[in-house]
């Protein structure tokens, strides 16, 4: 016998299911008005500093079929790389949002400010990115990924540099489609499967 650890283990995940919207985005599910204030509509308020950008995309399954029920959350720092709660962070950037696929087309849109770079405790610098946590029916544990930007210098990013198969890096990089506009498609499996993270 050995001493007993007094630590606990994380509760097991279960799928968010097809009706995740009821609990997270009630108006989308048809429950508008149940809460006075819903949360997550936008990661920015008026007056947020930095470049306002719009990212558009889809979430596809292993067959290439676009999910109509996908919901993901995003988390990011402000344009200076400070997270909400950090000293000096932009008060107009909550940095967190919920994004739903359109129930007809499956396309989603995120309007935010381009995040700044952030520094790890060992001094290495992370290229600007938005963290994503994706849940839906059929996803048994939320999928983590990141949105980087094609027009930033991603060459020294510690996470991107861990990806052995270099063509896969591309799955984490939003493509510029216009002034302040980007495209980012997530593929859960199949050709060009998005890189997902255990982080």
């Amino acid at each position, binding site marked *: 016998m050995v001493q007993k650890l007094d*630590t606990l283990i994380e509760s097991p995940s279960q799928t968010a299911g097809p009706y995740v919207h*009821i609990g997270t985005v009630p108006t989308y599910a048809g429950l508008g008005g149940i809460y006075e204030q819903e949360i997550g509509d936008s990661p920015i308020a008026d007056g947020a500093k930095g470049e306002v950008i719009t990212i558009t995309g889809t979430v596809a399954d292993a067959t290439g079929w676009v999910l109509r029920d996908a919901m993901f959350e995003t988390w990011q720092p402000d344009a200076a790389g400070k997270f909400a709660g950090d000293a000096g962070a932009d008060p107009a950037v909550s940095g967190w949002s919920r994004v739903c696929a359109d129930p007809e087309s499956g396309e989603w849109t995120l309007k935010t400010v381009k995040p700044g770079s952030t520094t790890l405790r*060992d001094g290495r610098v992370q290229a600007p990115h938005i963290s994503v946590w994706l849940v839906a029916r059929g996803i048994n544990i939320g999928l983590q990924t990141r949105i980087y930007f094609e027009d930033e210098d991603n060459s020294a990013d510690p996470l991107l540099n861990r990806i052995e198969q270099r063509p896969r890096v591309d799955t984490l990089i939003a493509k510029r489609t216009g002034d302040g506009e980007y495209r980012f498609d997530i593929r859960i*499996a199949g050709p060009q499967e998005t890189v997902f993270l255990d982080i």
Partner: protein
Amino acid sequence: MTDQSPLIPRNREMHPVPYYPDYKTSVARSPSLPLISMESTPSEETGPRFGHNKLGALDNNLILNWTKGAAPAVGERVLMHGRVLDENNRPVPNTLIEIWQANAGGRYRHIKDTYFAPLDPNFGGCGRTITDENGRYEFLTIRPGAYPWPNRGNEWRPMHIHISVFGHAFGQRLITQMYFEGDPLIDRCPIAATIRERSQLDRLVAPLDMASARPMDFLAYKFDIVLRGRRQTMFENKMEGM
């Protein structure tokens, strides 16, 4: 100053397998290539915080919140309560919990639910609250019905309540489900079975808690939730190799 030590890596052995053919939808919705593992960064060690100012007085009362208190929902009245803890066995205070569920007949109020069990005009099906200083939370709700769903030939979900918890770091984000003690459908459910170890699935089954039940009013079920913790040793703040 918030604690921004690294998160303890996820133990994926006790989480559900992503690809589980008996749960058919998971087949095309699970990655086929390995996840990239890395120590957490500020992107995962920070996260959104929510204040009580966002919440309404009835937000954690699913019996009354849909009608704003005008008429109660139909069903067996149940108190769902417990604590949110982290892997270091410490309470997680001031964190947002959201729940959603079917009504007593097993029907969700959702544009996509077409099961013919009737909607309850007095039941919405979602609630939210913030844990107190000791990580405690409470919801008053009705016991959700079991319901059939399209998967294998005759598939029924056990009674369950969906739960979303934030913690204080985006890397702690968790959605899970609470099952009810004694429900025979748990053993037949392919979604519950995505968790390989029965001892881990048992952690999602809430016991009947008569000590918290209120006579002539509601039964109670206790459900504690554990989120990822942070490494705590005094060496965490030193540079590697020093």
